[in-house]
């Protein structure tokens, strides 16, 4: 990977990479509901309807709610690395926010290594490279694996 290319989120606004990867959601300051992606207009709790929504970073750790894999190449707009290699996906429950967030699992960790309830950690990996930029995406990793990733 070229050192001169800047690393940016593949879709702006959903997550940040600095100082560390974090999903950007919002929190209703009246009822305490969280939203991901960020809700900006009105709280979706039908008995609240507040417009006091503040952007916030979601917890970077949670428990595995369920998991699966993608053994066939997904269609566009996904850009799969060639040759295609199956990857795992995880739905992770965040304790503070009380919601479940989906994400790909870091490369090389397949369903055989996963179990419902295990602790998971947010990290990031390259989604694809353009001529000038490296497009990044958030990933879930079993807690041990994430710390290995961070040291690389």
């Amino acid at each position, binding site marked *: 990977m070229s050192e001169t290319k800047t690393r940016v989120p593949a879709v702006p606004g959903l997550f940040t990479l600095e100082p560390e990867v974090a999903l950007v959601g919002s929190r209703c300051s009246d009822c305490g509901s969280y939203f991901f992606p960020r809700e900006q207009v009105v709280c979706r709790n039908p008995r609240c309807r507040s417009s006091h929504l503040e952007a916030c970073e979601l917890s970077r750790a949670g428990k595995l709610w369920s998991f*699966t*894999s993608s053994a066939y190449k997904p269609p566009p707009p996904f850009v799969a690395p060639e040759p295609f290699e199956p990857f795992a996906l995880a739905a992770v429950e965040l304790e503070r926010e009380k919601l479940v967030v*989906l994400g790909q699992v870091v490369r090389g960790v397949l369903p055989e290594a996963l179990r419902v309830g295990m602790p998971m950690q947010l990290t990031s990996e390259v989604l694809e490279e353009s001529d000038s930029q490296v497009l990044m995406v958030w990933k879930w990793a079993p807690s041990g694996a994430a710390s290995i990733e961070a040291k690389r």
Partner: protein
Amino acid sequence: MSQVVILGAGMHPWGKWGKSFVEYGVKAAELALKDAGVEWTDIQFVAGGDTMRNGYPGYVAGATFAQALGWTGAQVASCYGACATGAQAIDTARARILAGLCDVALVVGADAAPKGFFKPNAGDRPDDPDWLRFRLLGATNPTYFGLWARRRMELYGATPQDFAAVKVKNARHGLENPNARYRKESSVEEVLASPIVSDPLHLLEICATSDGGAALVLCSEAFARKRATEFIKIAGVSTVTPSYPSSVIEMPNLATDSWAGAALPERSFRDSIAFTAYEQAGVDPKDLDLAEVYDLSTALELDWYENIGLCAQGEAERLIRDGDTAVGGRIPVNASGGLACFGEAVPAQAIAQVCELTWQLRGQAGARQVAGAKLGVTANQGLFGHGSSVVVSR
């Protein structure tokens, strides 16, 4: 409440026929009209289920079918609700009849589906959750089916053999259905030997995309009384949204609602789909004779057993193991063969489920007939929080 009568039902066989969706819809409509003994020129209202295509005809299906059948000046509506599209079209026609705005209506849905995974329309649309899940995660529809299936294994001890048994049962049912696309027996071994698509689900456990068409002629009881002595009736229709906060990750979302600021509803979204229709119809799931549910995956069919009230949560595996949901069992599910044998033709599917119940309740289902069927329910769920259920009674 006065009920709406199903006077006619018709289907174009499912498959990959390489024709236009209009042709499938027109064929289904003609068969439904013939079955009802009603002329096209007698139809006062047409409700079409929209297909999703770039270009206009798919989005304006009601008038597209009306033009193909020949303009008559009938009132018209076009409906879209993902997999619940057909039920929304039924609901629209039923509401018009109940309101006294018309006596007889035609409901049509048809699709010519693209091969392979369903995917979003072209173009960069970061404000569209359907685009986002593909772009960032490569999360196809089977991704969600896989998550729900793994969760079932974890919570209730479901096994890959239990999931495969659903396919085996539905494949056997579909053998007897001339409208089904796949008419071939499957064994548990064959299912488990097919390639994994989304862990733990195999290729033979995930429904294919298909072409197909289905249609119904609906009318008021007064109109029906002039033509028939025994009525098959629509007793309830739900086309519901979830209740906040919905805590199960659903297509196409990246996250669930949060339950940090509001208590979870008494009924999950999937539970509410059939129960809303039961409440309208004033029936209890104990009284059902059969059900047609949306088996997008084998594992999902087991979820539906619980969601539509055939058993308590966590007991669905017992039903499939005991043969309760096979034709001849206590409460047959997907006697038609289900999506396992039909594949998905999105705007037609919810209508096709009601066609099957109509034939079953009339005793016209041939070798797949559920003996003495008097009360049935359909259930399905689609993208973006669309769910529907129809209760049909004799």
